[in-house]
């Protein structure tokens, strides 16, 4: 077991090296942070050179990369080019907002998918199943901005026009510390995330349950006279939900990066929007820091999920 974990960790280091190299190379060439100074009044070429020197942009690329990597290993992701704040500070300001949004959504997503998946599997080919299946196909084929703009159009714009109680569009200013305002502003983004994600999860759970229900031990459980309810919840669901755990486990670290589109549509001050705002400005310390943090989380969560899986399911052997 420990040899396996060690081997995985070594592999993870190689993966992380690739990630940093890819991110650094792409972000470096993708935008010019000096562009904002190009037409500034009263700024001479010497001033620009001084800024370049201060930001370390005069160095050759490999030197910049190595110095950035060395600092990153020491837990210093550098300062933002524009706001001059440490990247880690910016991230730590945004991360809680993303976590609030994502954890709430994920809990509701799991609950709704479990209910829909179970109903759809137990009543296979019934009208309910067909309706759930149709909706999950549509949900699965939908870009999130479609549902986001649609809900916003109806529940925020139209309701306001009709003089009904309406939901916020995200354009307004509000106090993040006020739990009521927070919950109120979360309604739309959370609903969108649920609709989009539940489609895939419930569909997956349905086929997983159906597969398990066809196995011999379920027949045995029925043959010995167990109630259908006990067969389903005590026997079938335990095995059927296992693969879902992997999927959720792998989705969670990606959630740290936030739902970029959802966050930008609803002006949610989370990680996704942080990335998007600073990527547009070409602030690559922030972009690289966000990418590095999110992808490292993915890499390490994959290992944790694989190891945890063997603890939950003794049939799996690591090799």
């Amino acid at each position, binding site marked *: 077991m420990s040899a396996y974990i060690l081997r995985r960790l070594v592999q993870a280091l190689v993966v992380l090296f690739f990630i940093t190299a890819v991110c650094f190379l792409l972000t470096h060439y993708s935008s010019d942070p000096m562009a904002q100074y190009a037409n500034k009044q009263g700024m001479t070429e010497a001033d620009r050179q001084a800024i370049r020197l201060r930001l370390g942009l005069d160095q050759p690329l490999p030197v910049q990369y190595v110095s950035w990597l060395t600092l990153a290993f020491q837990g210093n992701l550098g300062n933002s080019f524009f706001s001059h704040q440490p990247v880690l500070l910016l991230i730590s300001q945004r991360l809680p907002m993303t976590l609030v949004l994502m954890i709430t959504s994920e809990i509701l997503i799991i609950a709704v998918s479990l209910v829909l998946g179970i109903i759809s599997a137990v009543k296979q080919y019934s009208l309910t199943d067909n309706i759930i299946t149709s909706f999950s196909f549509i949900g699965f084929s939908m870009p999130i901005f479609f549902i986001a703009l649609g809900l916003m159009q109806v529940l925020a714009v139209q309701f306001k026009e009709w003089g009904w109680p309406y939901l916020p569009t995200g354009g307004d200013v509000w106090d993040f510390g006020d739990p009521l305002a927070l919950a109120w502003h979360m309604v739309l983004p959370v609903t969108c995330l649920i609709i989009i994600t539940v489609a895939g999860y419930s569909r997956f759970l349905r086929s997983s349950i159906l597969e398990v229900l066809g196995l011999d031990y379920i027949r045995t459980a029925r043959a010995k006279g167990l109630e259908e309810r006990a067969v389903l919840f005590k026997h079938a669901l335990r095995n059927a939900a296992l693969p879902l755990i992997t999927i959720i486990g792998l989705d969670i670290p990606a959630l740290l990066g936030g739902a970029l589109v959802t966050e930008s549509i609803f002006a949610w001050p989370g990680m996704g929007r942080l990335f998007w705002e600073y990527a547009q400005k070409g602030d690559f310390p922030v*972009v690289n820091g966000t*990418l590095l943090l999110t992808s490292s989380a993915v890499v390490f969560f994959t290992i944790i999920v694989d190891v945890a899986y063997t603890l939950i399911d003794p049939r799996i052997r690591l090799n």
Partner: protein
Amino acid sequence: MTTDALPALPDSNTSEPIAAPLSPRQLIWRRFRKHRMALIGAIGIGLLLVFIIVGSMIVPEPATRDGNLRARLLAPTAGHWFGTDTNGYDVFNRIIYGGQISLAIGVLAVVMEITLGTVLGGIAAFYGGWLDALIMRFTEAMLAIPQLFLLIVLAKFLGHDLPDINILGRTFSGSVGIVVIVIGGTSWMYLARIVRANMLSLREMEYIYAAKALGASDRRIFLNHLVPNTLGIIIVSATLGLAGAILSEAYVSFLGLGVQSSTPTWGNMMDQAQSFMVQGVWWLWFFPSLFIVFTILCINLVGDGLRDALDPRSGRHL
């Protein structure tokens, strides 16, 4: 319920007792045909193709750029079925031509995805050793970065001004090529892994040993034996990848990093939609989105049917 989940018996037992055995291709077609949703999806795609092809014969291409600012943001009427956009251009006309570009971007990006995925996955499986390790670590690295983040970074990386492209007497913004590369370059990873896993198991089969013993070259074994036997998986991935690519185009364009607006696509028709929403302008995002959802839904249905048809074990889910 139990009987539903049990493997169904081959239907040839009941219908054609002494008929000649079906070829694999006939069997696949028969299974696909029985998948009603997949047929609906295929019909939907057919209708869509008719719409964008016949549509472009009726509506001339300059009509997508024909309008003036006084007629901007008009709600749908008899004259403008889907309303007009921020430049006063007709949304319906742009949907026709935008559809052509969106589908073309999807197909080209999938071609790139398939090529990259098959070649990288194939090389990793075929040569093994350090090359395999290197390719797979790189694949994992690309997978670890959330795809939308990667799309944005790559789109900005490549997003410099490019000269226009002239094909078939029409002018396209050079950014079409960039979007294709961005999408193709960020979506090959799953396919590479699947191809590798499949080829690894194929490599150990006896007919490959036989081919080697007969002195077949690496190239011949790869192209004549390994690739054809992986084709089923590749076709399914390509179909589902097409849906993903069209969706990616929509996301990248929605964020304003896609094709420049001189060449309409379903995605870039929406990039200003949100700013005008509060004024009650809904047709800017609604119609392009609707076409995107319809297209992706149909493609996914076909892909699902193909997966069931090509995978003999999935017969019971029909």
